[in-house]
């Protein structure tokens, strides 16, 4: 499934970029994140406690950054395996652009949920990404809004925006990173 969307973050581009590469910021913003550690310049491991629908569990995931263009964007890939429940993996391109009031974050994610989850869990998967991404961008916005040097007086709430989707119509708007984490969480948390 291809997910696309964008959001306005009330902070300047460099601040957003720094945040997106700061394990501590990410850990604070990812709902339920218990640890997020940088293994190398481009590799992270993460442990997240997530409640997705009726499912709640702690899961581990591997996240890799590539095609890095400082202050402009990167490609983030994640993979989580849930044994008998299936798997989730995905890849998202995140791009940053200046805009009055802050920085526009655009993402295109290709998320692949497989195995039992895809076969019997379609109802459960729906909406999860949106919920978690709202939380993620809400927190990111709050945090950056409070950071010195960030664009002042912009609303801290996440900004809905996405227009394109599978059907070409407001399918989902969600943050690529969190979508990846959400589906990975889903795969593990049974």
């Amino acid at each position, binding site marked *: 499934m291809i997910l696309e969307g964008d959001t306005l973050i009330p902070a300047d581009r460099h601040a957003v970029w720094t945040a997106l590469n700061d394990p501590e910021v990410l850990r604070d913003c990812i709902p339920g994140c218990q640890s997020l550690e940088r293994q190398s310049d481009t590799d992270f491991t993460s442990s997240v406690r997530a409640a997705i629908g009726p499912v709640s569990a702690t899961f581990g995931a591997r996240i890799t950054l590539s095609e890095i263009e400082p202050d402009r964007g990167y490609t983030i890939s994640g993979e989580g395996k849930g*044994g*008998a429940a299936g*798997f989730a993996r995905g890849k998202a391109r995140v791009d940053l652009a200046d805009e009055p009031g802050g920085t526009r974050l655009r993402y295109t994610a290709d998320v*692949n949920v*497989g195995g*039992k989850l895809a076969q*019997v869990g*379609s109802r459960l998967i729906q909406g999860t990404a949106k919920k978690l991404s709202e939380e993620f961008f809400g927190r990111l916005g709050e945090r950056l809004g409070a950071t010195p040097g960030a664009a002042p007086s912009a609303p801290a709430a996440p900004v809905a925006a996405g227009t394109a989707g599978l059907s070409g119509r407001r399918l989902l708007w969600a943050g690529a990173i969190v979508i990846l984490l959400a589906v990975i969480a889903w795969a593990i948390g049974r």
Partner: protein
Amino acid sequence: MKAIEDFTLVGKTILRREDGYLMRGKAQFLDDLPEPKGLIHLAFVLSPYARADILSIDAGAAKALPGVIDVLTGKDFVDDIKLFAPVIEIGGYRPVRRPVVAVDRVNFVGEYVAVILAESPYVAQDALDLVEVSYDPLPSVAGIDEAAAPGAPVLHDHLGDNLIFKTAFETEGFADRFAEGDVVVEEEFRLGRVTGVMIEPRGCMACPDPIATNMTLWTPTQIPHIVRTAIADHLDIAESALRVVTPAVGGGFGTKAHVYPDELIVVALARRLGRAVKWVQDRREELLTNAHAREHVLKIRVAAKNDGEIRAVHLDVRTNCGAYPNHPYSPTLEATAAVRMMPGPYRIRNYKYDVSSVTTNTAPTGAYRGTGQPSAFLAIEGMMDRVGRRLGLDPADVRRRNTIRPEEFPYVNVVGVRYDTGSYLPSLERGLEMIGYDAFRAAQPEDRLVGGKYRGIGICNYTEVSGTGAPGWRVRGFAKMPGFDSSRVVVEPDGKVTVYVSQADAGQGHYTTFAQLAADRLGVDWADVMVVEGDTSKTPYGTGTFASRGSVVGGGTVIRCSEKVGVKVRRIAGYMLNADPERLVMKEGRVFDPASPDRGLTLREVAETAYSMNNLGLPQGEEHGLEATDYYDPPMVTMANGTHVVQVAVDPEDGKVEIERYVVVHDCGRVINPKIVEGQVHGATVQGIGEALMEEIVYDAEGQHLNANLLDYLLPTAMDVPDLELSHIETPSIDTVGGIKGAAEGGLTGAVPALANAVGDALAGLGVNITRVPLRPSYVFEQIRRARAAQEGRT
């Protein structure tokens, strides 16, 4: 074939003897069988990936679980199960063989990756969660177009691409004949992927049996003899040492007419471990791994004269094989059925077809009720409407113009199939009359909008292939498909009758209808005839129950065999009565000369003589016993026919299709038991309604199966079914024994095109072109919206 004129019980509704034990809960389906001591329960680890390399399998934790006996992987079966493949000998087919449990590589979601052996089903499921398989996912391909595209991931390296089957046919001078058309109409049709969804999923149980045979396999299959041969071939077991038994079978629909890897696995394990081994499929596995069907793309070009005459047809059929060829049919089954059936009831003399099948990272496809025929008729019946619309002719008239008339029978069609008899035109006319076609058309406004809904009528005039004999299978390359079926009819010492048939009932009522046939021929009470089938150790060899062959071939052999025994009965009775055997008749359990009906014998008295239970002795040269065996190889095929005419209303506000009237005219030749035929028509038609309106297995582009459950794969409920207006025409075959034609699939074959055409007719005023099934509201609505937008754009 000499027609039988003196049927007495044939044609009468006899209520089924099976019902009592089924309704009391006494029937034994696979999972109802008493469990042998030491039974091992299996569960399969299924691949979550459409295509991946298996890097490692760690079963340590699973094996440590109390109650787990072992965990085996593909490599553990390499030595005792040969690579699994059907035997197909037809030009253009390229063989692919597969391990029964994946070795190193998986090719579809649901493929078996490891096998859990446990003391209970619950523990087996617990162990599934503990097996850690490490995969390296590979690029995959799910759709026909994608698999055929250059650069697509190739499933089977030795093929070089994904094309597993391709063949073509063309009549002489086709291009010239095609050019004679005044108009050329083209269309591309698509059918969604569906499957049988028997309410009883599959399963199997192998029991080592050192005394009788070496091994008994209980499996709810439609083809016990073919299963036995396949297992013997792949496991190096003597066929004499393997007994395949079908317990009560909870629906088959063709889905259970395959040989599946698990059937080989349970036998191999039971042999290796010396313990009984059982596996019961759950609904998710049923939807993931049983043979799927359809997912066809049909491109059709028709050249027609201005008066509606179809001058020539070019049909290109592409099908999705799935990851591996199914056993025993391979992907050629639906593909060749579609192209061979397309001419249907029509006088099509100039024909060209191309047919192909590609491998994809999806479950193997195979047989399902209607096999190829709903596709063929969706195409040709869809073209009848389109030719009509193009030429300004009534679609019914286009059909009339091209339908084979009663005086043209017997008729050999363009691909060499003989239509011995049929009611193609009368059936069409009756269907149209029953629904009030002319009045409907006269009242139908040009925009077809009545009371806020678009209303239309759809027609499908179809032929139904049935009772395929050995030549019919051979011509399509099925080298190991016997084609014949067989029976043994025994008059027991007490004069009661046992009939052993090579078939396997899955709810069709054989225990009643075959008794009815034997009783009819032997002149006994049908209740005195017992029927035994679905057991390779009890019945002679045969093909099984699928492709509308039960009544034609099974029924035919029971008639023939009963008559053979009857000859011996009369011979012995003639000797006992000192009468000419030729003059004797068998009636009401007695054998007598009609000239002196009082002077006769009971069948029991004759049987006692045959079994040496009196002092009368036998005539010179006569053997003891009173039985016969018969192997009946029917004609290449026998064509039944029928017509569905459906009136629908389409709501433009929500895209829902409502069936307002549903007329079925059905001709399956000689009817054995009308109520049972009616049941077949109902059941098949409703499966057709499902296929046309709601059922579809959905894979995403990566080959993930998105609806392996019954909330997301929708079956019709009682509320989706209109009352059918059903009429029978009885045009007996002159080629088959008893004049019987098959009855099981026409309902489905008729329903899918009729419904698509009805929706197409209803929306024709809008310019909507309906070219695919299923017609879910979401899809129909979208077509209406686009057409309305286009109309507004024009005005």
